[in-house]
């Protein structure tokens, strides 16, 4: 009980640091300090979580942290200043897939009730879309794939069918959690949806798309938090989800466009081009 209280009180402190950090990031004079404040919040949240009594074995945690830490640090240090936005896209993608995996792993930790099943499926769905969407955004920005909008005949109908397929398979999985095949279908279709959502958008609009995907990765973390009953995931995820949407709108406004105009620009260009 004592440790659980300490963990949760530290989560409150971490949430406060995230909130101040985000606020400070919004103004030039305090931005760098704001990033540090938010990093301290993250450090506290991670360290205190290691005290959690359900953690029995530290070797896999250590392996994951060392691997991820080395890769993240090396990439962040070596990347050229001009390719920062695509780097953010890649990092965002890793956050998305992490939420997908946390949601998936939650299936085996305890007997999830139907509310938790819904949130597990949501974290898998949003995490998957964030992952492949971010990879495509990275590909377009780094010019590893063509930046022009990729559209084909029947794409809208295909996307509508895809979304219907996700809704059906997700519902089937929530109702029959023991049929693991439905889970694999949800994972595969969400990964496909991430690709389909980003390919029709032109390379020049990618910063807005990355901002939107950043919001999604927050929502994915929030859904994972609801699935495993972790307050700091819910709070931090919702903060990023909401502030990410506002930032996306601000970025659209700066270009004198609306969000739907950016998201569906590829389709309208083809329609008006004949």
């Amino acid at each position: 009980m004592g440790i659980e209280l300490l963990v949760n009180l530290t989560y409150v402190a971490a949430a406060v640091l995230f909130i101040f950090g985000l606020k400070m990031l919004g103004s030039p004079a305090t931005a760098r300090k704001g990033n540090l404040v938010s990093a301290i919040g993250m450090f506290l949240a991670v360290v205190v979580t290691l005290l959690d009594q359900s953690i029995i074995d530290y070797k896999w945690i250590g392996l994951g942290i060392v691997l991820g830490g080395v890769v993240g640090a090396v990439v962040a240090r070596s990347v050229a200043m001009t390719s920062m936005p695509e780097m953010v896209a890649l990092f965002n993608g890793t956050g998305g897939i992490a939420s997908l995996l946390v949601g998936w792993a939650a299936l085996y930790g305890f007997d999830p009730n139907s509310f938790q099943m819904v949130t597990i499926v949501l974290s898998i769905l949003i995490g998957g879309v964030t992952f492949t969407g971010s990879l495509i955004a990275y590909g377009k920005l780094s010019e590893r794939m063509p930046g022009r909008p990729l559209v084909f005949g029947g794409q809208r109908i295909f996307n509508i069918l895809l979304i219907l397929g996700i809704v059906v398979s997700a519902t089937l999985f929530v109702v029959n959690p023991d049929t693991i095949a439905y889970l694999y279908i949800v994972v595969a279709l969400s990964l496909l949806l991430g690709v389909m959502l980003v390919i029709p958008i032109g390379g020049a609009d990618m910063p807005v798309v990355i901002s939107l995907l950043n919001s999604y990765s927050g929502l994915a973390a929030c859904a994972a938090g609801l699935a495993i009953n972790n307050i700091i995931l819910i709070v931090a995820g919702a903060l990023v989800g909401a502030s990410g949407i506002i930032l996306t709108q601000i970025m659209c406004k700066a270009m004198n466009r609306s969000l739907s105009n950016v998201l569906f620009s590829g389709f309208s260009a083809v329609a008006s081009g004949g």
Partner: protein
Amino acid sequence: MEIVFLAFILMLSIFLGFELINKVPATLHTPLMSGSNAISGITLVGALTSAGAEHTQLATILGTLAVAMATINVIGGYMVTDRMLAMFKKKQGDAK
């Protein structure tokens, strides 16, 4: 009751997120995006318990992968944001 409690927390956090961001100068759009992206790496906290709790072998594998991926997000995200902001400050200094 628990779900109501979680819904309250969720709702308040979303409203707070909406209110936090306003009138951000265009030069800060990318660093702000990058900085909040690093915060979404909080999913690492969830990954830690999946990787360490020894529920099933599959859960441990999924959790370990999640820890690695989320750590890339956290470490890379904060470092890249700091690099961007450091450059930003230097540029302003040069202008003066």
